[in-house]
């Protein structure tokens, strides 16, 4: 009986996607969709018994009804712009590319265009990278591959530096909108670039964003990928961030979560070339009854690499945060340096954090550490600041900003860092 019930939920959920028009598809794209569709048949949605999804109940996501709807609305995008990045933006509304809202400053050796366009125009690149590393056993990632509408395609040529950071803006217009945004970011050998992808709701309730971000960082590339999740308090967001990092590369990913009913990030980084440096950071600020779940996995496959992970969160009201960070040091990955830390501040008695740092080490000559802390704000410190004339609010904000600062220092785009600082400041104001 329960099996039939599960199947019904799945079928019903998938039936939403039947109406899409993928006229722009190429053979390679179609083949990827077909393979993913076939895999979905054999996969079920996770339940609370699925260890990987233990703390994140997705029933509410699955049982809601969704629509796929293009929006031609006249939208003012200025509230979502980041200072200094206005001339390199790709805008998607409800998952559909809006050329009228986008602006790209041409630069030789740098491609930034919608994925739907890249499929034909850059068919060879698309075919060699698209969906090559996305986990085959994750149903949400497969759903994205099978039914994605569009997303950003960013390619930086060998030895090129993208002069300006690129901003991908994802907007939701309307109620119960579902999107499968798909970004593909490729940095060739010795290239350099910075990308921000941000998610916002213009209006509407109960949207579901099922995102996949694929990043390929070739030999000695320097890439920074920033995610800003601030949809509204009724929205759902599940993301798969898949990173493949080659020799001597330097890759940074920063994830900032400010809003969302349920937000789940699955970040997987394969450190596949020697002498790589990987930095993965996050800051989350759930409130009300929101849930933010960050699952990260770093696979050290080869020797002489270094990874640094720092996730911090401030959890208020009845919100819940989950951190599960796995660092896997494979047998051949000698001389790995892997450091992981997760620190949490609970602002209310009803706030919850489930933190699970995991290290699995199969090599015998490595330096690894992990740690997790949960605490309240230091009352002594608050009194000390008040005794100098600061209000309780200022004292708390000063302490929390200091707490966030260690994460924010990993942002390489100054104006984006300032924006995140402001958002933390606003997010902390009651």
């Amino acid at each position, binding site marked *: 009986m329960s099996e039939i019930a599960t199947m019904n939920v799945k079928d019903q959920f998938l039936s939403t996607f039947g109406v899409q028009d993928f006229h722009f598809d190429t053979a390679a794209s179609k083949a990827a969709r077909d393979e993913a569709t076939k895999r979905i048949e054999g996969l079920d949605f996770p339940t609370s018994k699925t260890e990987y999804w233990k703390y994140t109940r997705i029933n509410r996501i699955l049982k809601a009804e969704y629509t796929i709807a293009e929006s031609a609305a006249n939208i003012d995008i200025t509230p979502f712009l980041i200072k200094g990045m206005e001339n390199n933006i790709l805008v998607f509304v409800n998952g559909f590319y809006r050329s009228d809202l986008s602006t790209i400053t041409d630069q030789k050796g740098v491609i930034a265009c919608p994925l739907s366009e890249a499929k034909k125009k850059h068919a060879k690149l698309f075919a060699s990278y698209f969906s090559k590393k996305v986990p085959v056993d994750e149903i949400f990632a497969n759903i994205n591959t099978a039914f994605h509408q569009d997303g950003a395609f960013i390619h930086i040529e060998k030895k090129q530096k993208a002069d300006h950071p690129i901003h991908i803006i994802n907007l939701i217009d309307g109620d119960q909108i579902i999107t499968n945004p798909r970004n593909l970011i490729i940095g060739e050998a010795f290239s350099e670039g910075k990308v921000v992808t941000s998610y916002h709701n213009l209006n509407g309730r109960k949207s579901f964003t099922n995102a996949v971000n694929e990043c390929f960082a070739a030999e000695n590339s320097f890439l920074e990928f920033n995610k800003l999740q601030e949809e509204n308090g009724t929205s759902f967001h599940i993301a798969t961030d898949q990173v493949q990092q080659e020799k001597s590369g330097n890759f940074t990913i920063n994830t900032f979560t400010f809003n969302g009913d349920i937000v789940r990030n699955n970040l997987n980084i394969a450190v596949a070339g020697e002498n790589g440096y990987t930095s993965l950071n996050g800051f989350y600020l759930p409130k009300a009854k929101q849930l933010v779940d960050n699952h990260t996995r770093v696979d050290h496959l080869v020797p002489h690499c270094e990874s640094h992970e720092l996730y911090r969160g401030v959890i208020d009201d009845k919100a819940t945060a989950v951190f599960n960070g796995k660092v896997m040091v494979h047998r051949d990955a000698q001389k790995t340096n892997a450091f992981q830390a997760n620190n949490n501040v609970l602002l209310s008695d009803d706030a919850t954090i489930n933190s699970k740092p995991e290290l699995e080490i199969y090599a015998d000559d490595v330096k690894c550490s992990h740690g997790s802390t949960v605490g309240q704000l230091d009352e002594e410190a608050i*009194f000390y*600041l008040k005794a100098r004339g600061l209000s309780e609010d200022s004292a708390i904000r000063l302490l929390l900003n*200091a707490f966030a600062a260690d994460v924010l220092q990993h942002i390489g785009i100054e104006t984006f860092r300032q924006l995140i600082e402001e958002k933390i400041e606003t997010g902390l104001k009651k």
Partner: protein
Amino acid sequence: MIKIENLHASIDGQPILKGINLEVKPGEVHAIMGPNGSGKSTLASVLAGREEYEITEGSVTFEGKDLLELGAEDRAREGIFLAFQYPVEIPGVSNINFLKTAINEIRKYKGEEPMPAKDFLKRVKEKSALVELDNSLASRSVNEGFSGGEKKRNEIFQMAMLDPKLSILDETDSGLDIDALRIVANGVNKLKSADNASIVITHYQRLLDYIVPDFVHVLYNGKIIKSGPKELALELEEKGYDWLKKEEALEV
């Protein structure tokens, strides 16, 4: 400036202060001495507005205002400064940043405009020199990784920056070597004026060689049992507290 009358305070139902009377006028330096556990630090905490203590009786008037009605931040804004016995380390919060916020919140309370950045930096430079505090310490995280002496000097630096009317120094001398003590005391002396006052709480007479008090009070068992001129400190140094304890016992 401040008038403490029959002040009783307790913590967790345990009475600590049992009727303190003390008046401090502008320009005066009062030393409060006494054996361990007599209530010296409690008095400092109560005046600064620490909330763990319950005031069961008595009053404190500061510049005509009922001090006990004010929160810790408003007491600071009115001009009370507590130099902590154990300054708190606050990682990630820069000394300078927090002092700028403090000064501007105090000015806002008084209805004044924020201090111009130029004036602020000038004051930082001037006041850090006063306590021989390295410039880099001034811009580092509050007390983080500071030595004991540096922490105490930082307290006096903050005091100089905020320019309070009444400073309460809670065992600022304990744990200091002679050089650090000299620097701290020198800072306090230079900040002394006809308009401000200090209450210096100490366990040792040594500090009073450097900061010369106008009055010395002996706190014992939650009460001031003796007050006198600065010579009283020397007498205490010589004779200890036992003779006073006996006197007190006889009176009771």
